[in-house]
């Protein structure tokens, strides 16, 4: 009898399935709200919004370029610091350190990844900034100040501070995923290389080569985190709408400008512009994170524990 019987099993499964499906609803709602809210701004400024540097609440002229610039540059700098250090640490933990030491240290690094971002912001503002202001930045200005990158006044906060804080925040991601990917490559690769007369570093090189897709995924994932990081960056980046070449100057990211000005935005166009910035940010992080997850999933053969570092 093949009638559509409503069974307790079926209901239960449907209920749970419905809960699961809510995930789609949530994402759809976010997209919907972001799109709706930015409608006014999109209609007013069009594509020029993305290339304009104006930011004047009074005359109601808004442009997102400084914030896109700030987001991209701060994230790129953060990766510049975090990637070599992260991969080097992962190599150390996976290949060089004795197994016990490696396990303990990576456990600690993973725990530290759970520190709320505001803590990084607080540290960056109250500890790193004074240090930069009094020691590092004056040194940079004095010795390499002729380079536009290091010209300016030692504020302590600004692009450099944000880049450093961001890199500290994303390094655990790179370290733990890269380490796991390295550990999942077969030991026989290194043996084969050594038996051919490779030095230890060259044998590790073979393993790294095999681990490349996974490590790439880890880096892109770290990029995604850096792009979307709000709290810590807001506290240390200074928040200005001027684009400057110098790392010592304050800047702003898409996340930080929204965090700073959203509650004080008064006019509909102001609010809509901020929402449009959120939309752009959303789009970028979705694309970056989507690509990263695919890479990591594929490279670790489906093991998700490493990718579970949200």
């Amino acid at each position: 009898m093949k009638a559509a019987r409503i069974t307790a099993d079926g209901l239960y499964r449907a209920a749970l399935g419905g809960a699961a499906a809510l995930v789609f609803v949530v994402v759809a709602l976010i997209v919907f709200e972001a799109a709706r809210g930015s409608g006014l701004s999109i209609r007013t400024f069009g594509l020029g919004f993305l290339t304009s540097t104006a930011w004047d609440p009074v005359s109601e002229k808004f442009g997102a370029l400084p914030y896109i610039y700030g987001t991209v540059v701060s994230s790129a700098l953060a990766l510049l610091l975090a990637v070599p250090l992260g991969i080097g640490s992962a190599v150390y933990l996976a290949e060089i350190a004795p197994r016990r030491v490696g396990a303990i240290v990576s456990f600690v690094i993973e725990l530290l990844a759970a520190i709320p971002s505001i803590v990084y912001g607080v540290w960056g503002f109250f500890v790193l900034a004074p240090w930069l202001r009094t020691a590092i930045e004056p040194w940079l200005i004095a010795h390499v100040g002729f380079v536009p990158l290091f010209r300016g006044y030692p504020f302590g906060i600004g692009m450099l501070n944000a880049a450093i804080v961001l890199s500290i925040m994303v390094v655990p991601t790179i370290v733990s995923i890269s380490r796991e990917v390295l550990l999942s490559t077969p030991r026989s690769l290194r043996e084969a290389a050594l038996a051919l007369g490779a030095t230890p570093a060259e044998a590790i090189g073979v393993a790294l080569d095999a681990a490349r897709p996974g490590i790439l995924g880890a880096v892109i994932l770290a990029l995604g985190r850096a792009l979307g990081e709000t709290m810590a960056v807001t506290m240390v980046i200074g928040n200005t709408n001027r684009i400057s070449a110098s790392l010592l100057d304050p800047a702003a990211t898409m996340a930080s400008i929204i965090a700073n000005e959203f509650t004080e935005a008064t006019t509909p166009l102001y609010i809509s512009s901020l929402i449009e910035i959120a939309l752009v940010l959303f789009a970028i992080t979705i694309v970056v994170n989507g690509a990263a997850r695919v890479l990591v999933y594929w490279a670790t053969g489906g093991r998700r524990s490493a990718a579970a570092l949200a």
Partner: protein
Amino acid sequence: MSRPALTRAAGHINRRAIWSRIVIAACYGAGAIVVLPLALIVWHLLAKGLPALSLSFFLDMPKPVGEPGGGMANAIVGTLILVGLGTLFAVPVGVGAGVYLAEFGRGRFSSLVRYTADLLSGVPSIVVGVAAYGLVVLPMGGFSALAGGVALGILMLPTIIRSTEEMVRLVPQSYREAALALGAPRWKVTQQVVIPAARAGIVTASMLAVARAAGETAPLLFYGRTPYDDWNRQAWTGALVLVMMVTGISAVLRLTVRRVAQR
């Protein structure tokens, strides 16, 4: 062809050997550099946050500008309210979804759900806040705890889904088989055997999500407070409390997972 000696070869090969040592030393260095700032942060947390950590921190209201002492009771209460609301939204949905994925999740729908949950976890908190603005603030005519709760709930959801799924998967298959062999219908097996078995892990993982969410709320509560020195002192302590909560719960979670996996 000249053959280098087997002992202490000179020239070409030594270059590779030296390079190998440099690379390995650099990896040691990278490890040290990575651990260093993290250690620094923890040290600062303890050094600056511990002194003000007392019962008064939790129970007293902040004093007016310039006066030392006082606590962050209002901020803490506010955090608790927001986090409570978020939990109310996120835990039923998240646990439900997680159980579904673990027990029934093999097809394309489930893969899509997992992937989307992962995507959701990568959405910046500010974007979620903006979405909550449109969803809740505008219709309600103003900022409210509900808006914050919704935003927090969305932020917590992916974590709860993923960890619930992992916890439920850890439940040994033999439990399910035993119950089924006794004639229990599938849904009862899940509801009455599997979920209770995974309960400890689910609760801990949810607490972790809650703790992380609390971390996101803290700044929201600083709105309207301008005095910086007061904030300075309090901030460290607040931060310390947060970190202690998060790391404590994380560690418990790890241990729970290990214990469950060894069953």
